[in-house]
């Protein structure tokens, strides 16, 4: 068999599949976004051009859900990164003795998001949430009812991120740890010989070498956090009063609850474009130069 | 078993890089042919085109009488030994060796018999049930050989099969492969960049440089009558010493000094017979230079040269000499690396010599063994 034929044959099942179940739906999505179309009766569609986009870009609820997504993703990413990277540094500092630490730390890594959401809801919820009882027990808050994590509209978008942080800090930590252990020892030693103190070594040697790893973490985790649905859904269903409704949930609500397929498709298209652009930008800006 | 012939074979990678240029030669049935040349000269590429692993850009390749340009490797009936051995890590030695037979649809008991035979020949009998990961480098090399010899293919192709072994094992395996090939009588192409391997193993040796075939001949002829200065410098170790000189009648003018070239040389080489003040490149092999005060050579010419380094090896003494004439770069990167960038000449002195660095040695040059090349074309003058 000729080489190109072989390559084509091996590639085609996956290519056809992805074409049918990813590319075609994307086309369908974009197509829908130009119509006024109802989920219940999709046949009665009316072409309205860019109107759905205009509506989406001017709707307050959509704008708010978009900015909430940003709040959620940056809050989650910040703490995941902070905790994860510190954990990795700690593990690296105790090196061989960190085997067990790392094993236990890996526990949440594959926990289903739905379980993580439930668990954190249970930890935070109203009267029975154990977190507040503990905080009250050590005197941080006056009484267990003092912070209403999941029903305070100003707080909820951050409280729902706890589950995300719990779930994925391990990922950040273990990937960073692998990156740290990949740094050649003699580079650090050389810097030590050159008289660089620990902080300088970290800043001038460790951090630049970790750049590609950090880039991948930020891209992968950032995009995933912005896409979050299940974790928040199970905790609050977007409430109270849409205070934790992120963008993906807004799209879902408008599609399923209000059946407004056209407008939801327009937002979904915008969402898709932003995600892909974000990933592409991060790829070119951070990942590429580190490898060039 | 079959003859192999290449006619005007070219390989161009990605429309730009011309890796093999107009390669033409013929390998006899049962012959042991060695491809040799510096790194990157296209040896592997040529071999892989014969194997069918690399597409032939243009030209005609025949195995037996059949044109096989577009025949799949599996249908060429050729066995190959890779530099990395490419053993199948999940299969035992027995399964590794049996695999080509299995693919050829040979019945189980016949397979077992042949594997046992091959294992006996290669002294692998005790290791048949191990995985490649549990073998030493030398044993792995034998398994790779076993996978090739277990069937009787039309040809063996070997791409630097010994380069991952240590020096001692390499010498031993070199002899074993050569004698095995002679016993089996299978046409073999063997790629190496080690000219000692090439000279000791090959019936004939093809020297390549930058994708161009320089010369194909028996080791003796390559050594005695290299076609150009590249082959001259590449074959033989240490390398032939090459300097710009002038031929004036029967005198060779080398810097300030002169040597008399015997008339027998002119008789054998009409190209230099009647030259006056003709610029040439002269080549002197290290073994043709000795210490004039202790040499046993019957006839020689004498010149003087300062000694820069003396390496006593026991049976002989390598002496680095400063010849006062323009040094010539033959284009062989390994040769340059070997002598360093001082551009000294090397003489292979008899161990009785007493020269020391800083001395000026009186050299005995076997003038009847001098090589002459045209400075323009760099081709040998005969």
């Amino acid at each position, binding site marked *: *068999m000729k*080489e190109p034929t*072989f*390559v084509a044959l*091996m590639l085609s099942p*996956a290519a056809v*599949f*992805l074409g049918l179940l*990813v590319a075609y*739906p994307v086309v369908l999505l974009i197509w829908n976004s130009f119509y006024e179309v109802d989920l219940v009766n999709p046949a009665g569609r009316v072409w309205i051009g860019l109107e759905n986009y205009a509506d989406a870009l001017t709707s307050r609820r959509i704008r708010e859900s978009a900015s909430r997504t940003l709040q959620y993703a940056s809050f989650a990413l910040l703490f995941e990164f902070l*905790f994860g990277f510190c954990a990795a540094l*700690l*593990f690296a*500092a*105790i090196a061989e003795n960190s085997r067990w630490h790392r*094993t236990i730390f*890996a*526990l949440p*890594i*594959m926990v*289903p*998001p*739905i*379980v993580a959401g439930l*668990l954190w809801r249970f930890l935070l919820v109203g009267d*029975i*949430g*154990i977190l507040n009882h503990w905080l009250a027990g050590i005197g941080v808050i006056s009484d*267990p009812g003092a912070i209403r994590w999941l029903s305070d509209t100003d707080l909820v978008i951050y409280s729902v991120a706890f589950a995300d942080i719990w779930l994925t*800090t*391990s990922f950040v930590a*273990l*990937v960073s740890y*692998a990156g740290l252990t990949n740094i050649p020892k003699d580079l650090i030693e050389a810097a030590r010989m050159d008289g660089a103190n620990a902080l300088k070594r970290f800043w001038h040697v460790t951090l630049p070498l970790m750049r*590609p*790893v950090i880039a*991948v973490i930020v891209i992968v985790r950032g995009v995933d956090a912005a*896409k979050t649905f299940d974790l928040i*859904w*199970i905790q609050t269903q977007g409430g109270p009063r849409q205070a934790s409704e992120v963008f*993906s949930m807004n799209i879902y609500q408008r599609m399923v609850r209000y059946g407004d397929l056209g407008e939801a*498709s327009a937002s*979904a298209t915008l*969402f898709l474009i932003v*995600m*892909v652009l974000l*990933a592409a930008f991060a790829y070119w800006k951070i*990942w590429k130069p580190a490898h060039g | 078993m079959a003859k192999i012939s290449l006619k005007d074979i070219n390989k161009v990678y990605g429309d730009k890089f011309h890796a093999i240029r107009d390669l033409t030669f013929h390998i006899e049935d049962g012959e042991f042919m060695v491809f040799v040349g510096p790194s990157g000269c296209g040896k592997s590429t040529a071999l892989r085109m014969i194997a*069918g*692993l690399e597409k032939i850009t243009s030209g005609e390749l025949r195995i037996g009488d059949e044109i096989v340009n577009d025949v799949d*490797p*599996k249908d060429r009936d*050729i066995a190959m030994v*890779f530099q990395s051995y*490419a*053993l199948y890590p*999940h299969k035992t030695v027995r399964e590794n060796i049996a*695999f080509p037979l299995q*693919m050829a649809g040979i019945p189980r008991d016949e397979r077992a018999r042949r594997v046992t035979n091959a294992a006996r020949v290669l002294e692998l009998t005790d290791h048949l049930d191990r995985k490649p990961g549990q073998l030493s480098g030398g044993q792995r090399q034998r398994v790779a050989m076993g996978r090739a010899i277990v069937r009787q293919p039309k040809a063996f*192709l070997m791409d630097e099969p010994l380069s991952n072994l240590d020096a001692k094992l390499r010498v031993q395996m070199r002899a074993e492969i050569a004698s095995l090939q002679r016993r089996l009588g299978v046409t073999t192409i063997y790629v190496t960049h080690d000219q000692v391997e090439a000279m000791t193993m090959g019936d004939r040796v093809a020297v390549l440089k930058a994708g161009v075939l320089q010369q194909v001949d028996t080791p003796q002829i390559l050594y005695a009558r290299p076609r150009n200065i590249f082959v001259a410098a590449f074959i033989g170790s240490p390398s032939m010493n090459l300097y710009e000189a002038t031929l004036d009648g029967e005198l060779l003018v080398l810097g300030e000094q002169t040597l008399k070239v015997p008339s027998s040389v002119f008789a054998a080489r009409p190209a230099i017979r009647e030259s006056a003040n003709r610029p040439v490149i002269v080549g002197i092999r290290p073994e043709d230079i000795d210490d004039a005060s202790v040499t046993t050579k019957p006839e020689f010419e004498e010149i003087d040269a300062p000694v820069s380094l003396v390496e006593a090896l026991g049976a002989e003494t390598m002496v680095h000499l400063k010849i006062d004439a323009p040094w010539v770069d033959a284009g062989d990167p390994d040769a340059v690396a070997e002598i360093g960038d001082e551009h000294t000449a090397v003489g292979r002195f008899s161990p009785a010599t007493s020269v020391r660095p800083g001395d000026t040695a009186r050299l005995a040059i076997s003038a009847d063994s001098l090589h002459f090349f045209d400075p323009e074309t760099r081709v040998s003058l005969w």
Partner: protein
Amino acid sequence: MAERSTFDMGRTIVQALALLLVLSFAVPYVYLVMTSLKPAAHVQQIPPSFLPNRISVENYLTVINTQSMPRAFLSSVAVAVLTTILSLALSVPAAYVAAQYRRPITVFFLLFALITRMVPAVSLGVPLFQLLKSLGLLDTTFGLVLAHTSAAVPLVLLLLAAFFDGLPKEMEEAARMDGCSRFQAFLYIVVPVMKSGIAISALFAFITSWNEFLYALLLTSQNSKTAPIVIAEFNSVYGLSWGPMTAAAVLYSLPVVLVTLVLQKQIIGGLTFGAVKG
């Protein structure tokens, strides 16, 4: 001597910090397990206690005796197994040529997979709904398998491509010299040689499907609901019956957690492969 002891002090502090951090991440899950083992009546007591004062499997019995839960678990297993098989069948050959036959089309294909990895599920949900509906596959196991496979393929493909990158090209070449066609070389040599990498990828495909929520929510209603959907619905149907819910959550997550702990090295390897290798 003094220096020595400050050094030890520093070490101890670092050790203690690491331990504290690790424990604080394990505690929530331990609490979930503990809660599920409390008698139903104690689950929502105020103030809550960390440990059960009496171990009880009451919550587990409640879960197992519901109509929906055992069915949902079976459905989850079926969907995840089929997704794993289908994803591998599609990805292994594609990842192999993508990694070993570098050319514009394979590079483009990998890039496409990378982009697909970034596409939000919610964007694809509705068109997938329309597509499956027109194929009559809504609320069927196979329909959900298709959706889950579309999410698993890009992930598994990139992971496998990274594994295949490390395979010497000579494996295939040697097999072809030994009489295999390219396809036989792939089947008889490449796949067995790469079996550990393929196993890890299978695990990732399985977990992707096992953990998936949004597609299951959108694309199933009666027949093929998976466990996470039923657990989420527990919430509304039975009021806030936290006891059985924690038991269901433990049942649903414990297999994955145990696998993660046992195969920690391989899973971390899989997660870090792309990231660290670059």
